[in-house]
Structures are given as structure tokens and as C-alpha cells.
């Protein structure tokens, strides 16, 4: 393991979402959802409080249903490791408008900071590249993150996966609503879709 430079997770997510425009965002349970909420609540945010492993795949369904919009799935290393098979499903589907951003602290931060597989050497960007993602990157600093933000809004040939290496810290919690029905309906309303 190398002691590479590590980002502050809140600063990283805030920088990634700067001037987000009409970006649609799904955030996985735990810290990614808190980070997204801390960066600014938005009707086009869908926060998860469970269903671990689902964030990137909700992103896939959403990207297929809204091909004209950019979709960001914001997840953690623990959640994306649980959904490794889902990366193959996304690679086969080849959505051009889906970006998965993994906030990678190398640990299961919610449950006592046990080292995760990425903390033990597994490289999620390399996995995604092998599967056929169109663009995979790993960034360690805010300079790299500015390039990531630009890439997020640029056209792409297929799905992309960006890993943001962040420090293993637990910032003050910023809790989004836990009512998934409310979150679902306000998200659909933002897209001009009817509520049943």
C-alpha cells in the first residue's frame, strides 16, 4: 500500500457537484448520502438509506429512462464492492450518460472503520476498465477532481467510473429525509412526471 494523498470527502463531493446544472444524482446509503446532502439538497437527488449495492443500478435504470440527462451515482467503496456484478451489467448496457463516482476511503466507515477490500488493494477503477467502461479514473487531489467535474459534464462513449480517494474520517452527519416515497415523488416531479 502506498501512502498517496487523500481528499477530504465533503470537499471532494462539493467540488464534483459545483454548478451541477440539471444533473440527476443517486446517492448510496451512509456517508455518500450525507455527503450529497451536505453539498446541497436538491429535488434531483435520490438518497438511499438501505438496499446496499443498489446506487449504481438505480443509476442505470434512470439513465436508460432519461437518455438526454446526465446521471451520477455517488457511492462508497463498500457499496460498490457489494455490487461488483452490477458493474458487469452496466458495462453490457453501455449507458453513455451514467457516471459512477466512488468515494473510496478504503474502509467500512459506518460500522467501525474496518478496512475494506479497496483498503486491502482492490482497485475498482481497474475492475471497471477490465469490464469495458469507457472511462475510468482515480483521483487523489482537488486538481484531479476539477478535471473529473469537467469530464462529468462532457459527452462520453459509454459508462464511466471515477474513484475519489478520500481520507478515512467521519465528518458531522448531514441527514437527508428518510422517507423514500417523498424522495421518489419530488424527484419525479422535478422531471415533470406525474405522481400516481
Amino acid at each position, binding site marked *: 500500500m502506498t501512502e498517496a494523498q487523500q481528499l477530504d470527502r465533503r470537499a471532494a463531493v462539493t467540488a464534483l457537484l459545483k454548478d451541477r446544472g440539471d444533473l440527476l444524482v443517486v446517492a448510496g446509503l451512509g456517508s455518500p448520502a450525507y455527503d450529497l446532502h451536505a453539498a446541497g439538497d436538491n429535488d434531483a437527488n435520490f438518497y438511499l438509506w438501505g438496499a*446496499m*449495492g*443498489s446506487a449504481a443500478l438505480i443509476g*442505470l*435504470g434512470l439513465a*436508460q429512462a432519461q437518455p438526454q440527462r446526465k446521471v451520477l451515482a455517488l457511492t462508497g467503496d463498500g457499496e460498490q464492492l457489494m455490487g461488483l456484478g452490477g458493474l458487469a451489467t452496466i458495462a453490457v448496457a453501455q449507458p453513455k450518460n451514467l457516471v459512477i463516482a466512488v468515494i473510496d476511503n478504503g474502509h467500512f466507515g459506518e460500522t467501525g472503520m474496518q478496512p475494506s477490500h479497496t483498503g486491502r488493494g482492490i482497485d475498482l477503477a481497474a475492475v471497471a476498465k477490465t469490464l469495458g467502461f469507457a472511462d475510468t479514473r482515480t483521483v487523489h487531489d482537488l486538481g484531479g477532481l476539477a478535471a473529473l467535474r469537467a469530464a462529468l459534464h462532457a459527452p462520453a462513449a459509454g459508462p464511466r467510473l471515477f474513484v475519489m480517494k478520500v481520507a478515512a474520517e467521519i465528518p458531522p452527519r448531514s441527514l437527508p429525509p428518510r422517507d423514500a416515497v417523498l424522495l421518489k415523488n419530488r424527484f419525479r416531479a422535478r*422531471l415533470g412526471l406525474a405522481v400516481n
Partner: protein
Amino acid sequence: MNKRIEAPPGAEPISVAWPDEVYRAPKAAHVAHMAYVPDAGHARLIQRFHADRAATVNVLTTEEEGIAIAAGAWLGGQRSVLLMQSSGVGNCINMLSLATVGRFPLLMLVTMRGEWAEFNPWQVPMGTGAAAALAAVGVRSLRAETPEELVETVAAAAALAYEADQQIAVLIAQRLIGAKKW
């Protein structure tokens, strides 16, 4: 429930062509999005979706992925249907919390194994336990024993899912599909 569907002269009987009939129900309910883990019983239905240029189809590595994809499709304004066999129900359990807690419309078409002239004992636990497992996490099952019943049940389940925000699994009896040939 006893209405017979008569095949036109020269056409295959409903006992063979039921996947074509079932395919019409999601189409009629404006479902243009499908995900699946294959089952031999679903093969013809999967073919029909793949052949439909207006449909988006995802092949999954495990069934739970489809619960998440269907929720994402609904967030974006599309109706999605999920195909699997009964063993796959067990793979979905925690992921179903997304559909039930979020009241996301969910239509699962589940071909049953392990319940009728089954050769493989490993299919029996989820074959006999699928409905109970689904019920335990708040997903309702509707069973169909005959092709005629199935066509009607899928249409009813689609209405319950997409109009009434319910999470519904249509369990397609193994007796209907026929025993797997070994």
C-alpha cells in the same frame, strides 16, 4: 378466470404460445423496459423482448440488480418488468426494501421450480419458499396455474404495480411450464 383463449386456425395452441400472450400484457401496460436472469421457462418471452426495438433489455448477473434498475427506471418515468426463476427470489430479499419502502411499482414474473415433477432437489427450498419469502418482506404473490390464468394474472398484476404502486410477483406454476427435460 376460466375464459379460454382460442388459438386461431393453424396457430400454436396456448399451451405452447403462452409467452406470446403474456408478452402482450406488459406491452399493453406500456412497459418498454425489461431485466432478467434467464430461465428456460422464460426463453421465448426473453426472445420477444430482445426482438422489440422499442424495448430496453438488461441481462443481470443476479436478480437483485433488477429491483434497483426497475426503481431507477420508475424515477426516470419508465415502467420496467423483471423476469427470474424461483431460486432468484432468494437473491432479492434485502433489495426488495427499496421497492416496498419507496412504494416503487414492481412487477416480477417468476417461473417456479422445485414444486412439480422436479428432478433437482436444490430447486426445492426456494421453489416451496418463494411466496412466503416474498410475503415476509411485503411483496404480494399472485399464482397462475394455467396459460389462460397467467395471461389474465399478468395484466392484473401490471395494473396493481404501475397504477397502484404495489410490489407484485406473478408466480408461474411449474406445472404450467412443464418439467425440465434432462
